[in-house]
């Protein structure tokens, strides 16, 4: 057997921070054979991206240092290369695709120029030749009208197209190794699927090796040959891709596999990593009842009261134009939407970004002023109520946002954040009482009361989302809009938060509108699912029906985009 293309041996990466030295990568080793795809899986902060940057020699110096380890590429230790040698490798022999296509392209240069730049660095070709090659590459990565698109600037392209440009740039010099760092995470599911297929195709076509980094085991199934699982800076499992779904050894891997909601049958609560191992990484025995598949259909109706009724709702934003910036037209973000929602139920809204689902959610809460149509809540028309009435309504209706980083005021402590709604509405007689209410809920969402006086930045993304949930529930609302509330989280955390939402729904008899771009998540949590496209709900049905009998082509497209990898999983095999 030939030696692997890339061989990482005993790599250690450390960072100098204000608090001291932290070890981001702890003595890891793995190989990438020529022409193979290796998936590196782990949650954020597990050290997977740092590993890739170490291979590329792109770690931020002097903050980062590599006290130990070797990275052999074609038999040479890259860590011993100087900067100019590394430049020969970068973009030429090893190239990389990053997570954020929005920010990873230089906004001020034409896309084809950016692709051509890579070529011109490493190949002695004329400007014209490089450009032509760039157009050709754009064609290969499936950008429509490559000759014209070549002249576009990044902001004139969609996220998916930008990621294709990034891929074209990466394969421009036909590298031996392509590193893809979460290349699909920022994309909508449908796009994600296309990009994965493209990467797979190119990898075959160019006979490249690929290092595919993701937090979602699900997406890896289709393309990876081998999988390396990283957890807390260490490699915990290396396995063949086919086998890892059936015979995962490490409890963390098992957890990762189990935590992704599947279309159709799921346990009543999603399994999480913590079901498989305790905090110290020691494997736990999972109780049988946790894995019993639960069928929502069989659950009897909790109530039949209609809590929310939306009729012909239209929300539009003005389009400014003309000499004095008058409103010349309107953009209908929500266009004639009607539905009803019963008490205690969850309505899932699913669709790609820009379909109007977020605006719909905010219009219902009157955070965005609806244009026409009506919203009635508990039988009362709330479309045009104002001031005091609206303020009182806020006690009953709440929202949980997508971004756990920007939805908490960074200058307030958690206790301030949690008691603020109580202050506003005069709930609780004293500060102490309000504090104890905050504390109670804080513990209920799974956090320690001792952390109440901390600031948001001291918490992880998942914890922050729990805090957001706690804030939304402080006023004991009846109705909560969860706006992409789990989309920004790693799958393993996502499962925990989904479980929490379900627990809380049960405890507080909440009614949810759950907005997501991920049909599998919606399918898991919602009783009824509305598929949105172009500001309208194009299909609405019971969650299982949507999955089983999609009527609209668009729904089918959404469904087919869900990574199939996970379906290989045999749940019982995990136990």
């Amino acid at each position, binding site marked *: 057997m030939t030696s692997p293309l890339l061989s990482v041996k005993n790599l250690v990466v450390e960072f100098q921070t204000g608090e001291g030295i932290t070890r981001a990568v702890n003595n890891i080793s793995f190989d990438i054979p020529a022409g193979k795809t290796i998936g590196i899986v782990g949650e954020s902060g597990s050290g997977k991206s740092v590993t890739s940057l170490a291979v590329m020699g*792109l770690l931020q110096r*002097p903050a980062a240092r590599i006290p130990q380890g070797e990275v052999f590429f074609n038999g040479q230790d890259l860590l011993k290369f100087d900067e100019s040698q590394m430049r020969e490798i970068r973009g030429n022999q090893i190239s990389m695709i*990053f997570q954020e296509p929005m*920010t990873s392209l230089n906004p001020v240069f034409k896309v084809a120029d950016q692709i051509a730049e890579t070529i011109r660095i490493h190949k002695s070709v004329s400007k014209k030749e490089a450009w032509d090659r760039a157009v050709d590459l754009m064609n290969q990565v499936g950008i429509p009208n490559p000759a014209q698109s070549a002249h576009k*600037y990044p902001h004139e392209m969609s996220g998916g197209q930008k990621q294709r440009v990034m891929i074209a740039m990466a394969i421009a010099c036909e590298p031996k190794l392509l590193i893809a760092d979460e290349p699909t995470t920022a994309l909508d599911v449908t796009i994600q699927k296309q990009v994965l297929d493209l990467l797979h195709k190119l990898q075959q076509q160019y006979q490249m090796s690929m290092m595919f980094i993701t937090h979602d085991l699900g997406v890896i199934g289709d393309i990876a040959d081998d999988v390396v699982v990283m957890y807390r800076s260490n490699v915990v499992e290396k396995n063949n891709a086919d086998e890892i779904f059936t015979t995962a050894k490490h409890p963390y891997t098992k957890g990762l596999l189990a935590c992704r909601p599947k279309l159709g049958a799921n346990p009543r609560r999603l399994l999480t990593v913590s079901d498989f191992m305790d905090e110290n990484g020691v494997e736990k025995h999972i109780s049988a009842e946790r894995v019993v598949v639960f069928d929502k259909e069989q659950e009897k109706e909790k109530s039949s009261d209609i809590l929310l009724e939306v009729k012909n709702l239209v929300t539009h934003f003005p389009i400014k134009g003309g000499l004095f910036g008058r409103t010349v037209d309107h953009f209908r973000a929500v266009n004639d939407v009607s539905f009803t929602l019963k008490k205690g139920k969850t309505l899932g809204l699913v669709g790609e970004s820009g379909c109007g689902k977020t605006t719909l959610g905010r219009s219902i809460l009157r955070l965005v002023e609806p244009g026409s149509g009506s919203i009635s809540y508990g039988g009362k028309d709330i479309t045009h109520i104002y001031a005091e009435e609206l303020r009182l309504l806020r006690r009953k209706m709440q929202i949980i946002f997508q971004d756990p980083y920007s939805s908490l005021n960074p200058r307030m402590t958690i206790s301030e954040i949690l008691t603020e709604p109580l202050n506003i509405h005069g709930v609780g007689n004293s500060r102490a009482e309000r504090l104890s209410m905050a504390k109670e809920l804080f513990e209920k969402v799974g956090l320690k009361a001792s952390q109440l006086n901390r600031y948001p930045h001291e918490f992880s993304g998942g914890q922050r989302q729990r805090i957001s949930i706690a804030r939304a529930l402080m006023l004991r609302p009846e109705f909560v809009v969860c706006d992409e509330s789990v989309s920004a989280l790693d799958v393993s955390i996502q499962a925990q938060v989904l479980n929490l939402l379900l627990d809380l729904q049960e405890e507080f008899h909440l009614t949810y509108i759950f907005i997501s771009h991920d049909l599998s998540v919606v399918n898991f949590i919602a009783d009824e699912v509305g598929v949105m496209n172009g500001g309208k709900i194009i299909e609405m049905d019971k969650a299982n029906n949507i999955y089983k009998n999609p009527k609209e082509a668009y729904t089918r497209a959404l469904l087919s985009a869900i990574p199939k990898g996970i379906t290989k999983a045999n749940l019982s095999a995990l136990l």
Partner: protein
Amino acid sequence: MIKYVIRRLLYLIPVLLGVSFIIFVLFNLVSGDPTAVLLGKNATARQMAELREQLGLNKPLLEQYFDVVRSAFTFNFGTSWATKQDISQMIVQGAYPSLCLTLPAFVFATILSLVISLVAAFYRGKGIDLFVRIMCIAGVSVSALAYILFFQYFFAYKLGWFEISGFEYGFPDFVPYVALPAIIFVLLSLGPDVRFFRTVILDEIYQDYVRTARAKGLTEIVVLLKHVLRNALIPIITYVVIQIPSLILGALLLENFFSIPGLGGITLNALNSSDFPVIKAMAILSSVLYILLSLLTDVLYTFADPRVKLK
């Protein structure tokens, strides 16, 4: 784009009305009677009254305000009260020496600052970065007056490298006269310029696309000069262009000490002789220039950044 330009030009109207109003309040309402100063030490009460009438200071206030507004929109500033010179001509004549001093100094300071900032950004966090920054800040921490007094004495008088004072028209005749004040100008600009440019460049250096550029195998210098600089251009353009109106006003102290007959001295003289029409003209001109230049920056943005569309 054209619509945008027209709209921005129309914005001149409210701004000029505002500027006229501030000037009117300052000079027609609040400030004292200029006639005594204008007539000199032997002024009589009767002559002062006559002059007041002649200068239109007895007109109703509203009418006086309209006069200010009119001159703002017609650019007809009339003649100076104190020197009886035609104001437009004074400004045209004074702008030349002022610009001879400030423009090369400004261009040089900007380029030098940019180079220094790039060097500092290249060596960010290292000793050389710190050293350059501190030197620039130290340079700007000395009062302009102290620089002038010392440099004039030492470089112009003791060493005789430069002319002590004066000005001559035409290149390169003016060079020996403006060189020393220009050096002081540069010294005083480096600090704030470098601070600003360096921050802007560092803001960009940590962007994702820079990592992409590095991943392509570009050298750090190309990354800086091509990718980073181009993106940092927008704030830099704003910062640079907006300073231009004050260049035309000249460097007041420098002009006075080095006897450069520029607009700074004209403004100062006008203030010292209650020559309100000149002050008004200077204020109005510089605000028109300010608006035009902010428009120019907007137009430059579209070249620097394809994302910017003027609507």
